[in-house]
């Protein structure tokens, strides 16, 4: 099996089921997904890695029909509340229309292939799909 690489470093593929990991401030508990210099809430500088729940609720969404050149449309972009940690993501494996995507719907993390590079490494993206 060829190796895989995640689209972003906070998507973890090789430690059990795929999941997201946040940087949690050890002082105040604020969550971040990017490389940190300090905590924007309390100015603390120590963080620990915390697994983000893979199921959540769609707090808000838009259906993008007009995007920058090269981006396939339409797609559903939204914010998922995963047990108190908000995650930016697309809603995938669903028809991109307001009949099938609704505020407050339950969703779960899902991954998909972005393609394989010249070295044989497969890139994996993530989104959230309806959790029936």
């Amino acid at each position, binding site marked *: 099996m060829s190796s895989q*690489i*995640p*689209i*972003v*470093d*906070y998507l973890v593929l090789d430690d059990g089921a795929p999941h997201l990991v946040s940087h949690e401030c050890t002082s105040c508990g*604020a*969550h*971040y*997904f*990017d*490389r940190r210099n300090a905590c*924007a*809430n309390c100015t603390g500088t120590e963080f620990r890695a915390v697994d983000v729940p893979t199921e959540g609720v769609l*707090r*808000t*969404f*838009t*259906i*993008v*029909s*007009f*995007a*920058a*050149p*090269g*981006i*396939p*449309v339409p*797609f559903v*972009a*939204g*914010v998922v509340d995963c047990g*108190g*940690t*908000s*995650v*930016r*993501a*697309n809603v995938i494996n669903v028809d991109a229309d*307001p009949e099938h995507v609704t*505020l*407050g719907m339950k969703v779960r993390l899902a991954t998909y292939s*972005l*393609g394989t*590079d*010249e*070295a044989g*490494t497969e*890139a994996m*993206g*993530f989104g959230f799909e309806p959790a029936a």
Partner: protein
Amino acid sequence: MSDDVWILGIHMTKFGKHPDKDSVDLAAEAALAALADAGKSMKDIGILAAGNLLGGGGMGQQLQKQIGQTGIPVYNVSNACATGATALRTAVMAVKAGEADYGLAVGVEKLAGAGLLAGGSRKADSDTWTPSGRYGAIAAVDGRIGTETMPGVFAQIGQEYLYEHQYGGAPFELFARISEKNHAHSTLNPLAAYTKRMSLDEIMNDVMIAYPNTRPMCSANCDGAAAAVVVSGSVLKTLSQEQQKRAVRIAASVLTTDPWEEACQILPNVNTLTRNAAKQAYEQAGVGPEDLDLVELHDCFATAELVHYDNLMLCEEGGAVDFFESGATWRDGTTPVNVSGGLESKGHPIAATGIANVWEVATHLRGEAGDRQIEGARVGLAHVIGLGSACGVHILEKAA
């Protein structure tokens, strides 16, 4: 009164397409007209604050080279869509600090024909997946992990409000009706980029950009400039009766940024910093939302206008939908909002917007707004927000 800062002269150019004018031409037109309105010249001005995002930098000095190189300090400011308000506030602070008797603030943008702002175009993925940046991304994330485009970001901001307040109606039509109001208002504004009334059907059946925002529900890219001359209260007292009568008091000038909250780095939170700015502004001015005769707020998208009814405390907390449904924000309502047509119809030449909305309010307070005059207007509020984020709120009062 001596500590107060007043608008002595102010001007807004026609918003729209100005193919024969560059940014400096438009800035000069606005600045010279504001100076003429004030009865002053560049030789009187002690500080210049200039806002422009897309012109390549140094707008203040470029402007000076056309209308007067007097050696005064120039502050070139940049604060996304709050740039104009930031320029005005910079001039206000200088006058308030006693560093200048007269300040000039200018905002200008050439934006006609511009497409989507932010997001850029997606580059081809590289031959080998290599992590880079703060998220270790191996490929472009716009469109793969949410959207970076403004219509999509603000669509989510409006939808989030409906989720939090358990709206049971049809979101698309609700937001489209807000846009219908602003497009109706602009029919009375000869300086607006678009002055054609649009029906609800036309708005909803126009090109979908990012659900629930169709094209006419998005701010209109256009060219334009606005400028204001500000003066201290003590200096104003030495001027003519006519100048004193037309001067408009800046009862509050506030700029805030977004304090940290859960999720604010996931989806920009435009709410808290606006509410904070509004609270400070009402306190500074000694007025409440119920005292406002008109409001120009930052309807960069129809979905944004709704949340700012609440953020500016024009309605009860959580009550923005009912407030709009009551008709309060139409020009004949209790709190007319965006009688200029707003960003959706008047247009949004980014750095000009934060002075143009102050011009709109000031023009009503002076009783000079022509067909769209809000009769007897004495107090008004102008609000802008730039993502990143920065929020500017100015409360203006008619001279006693």
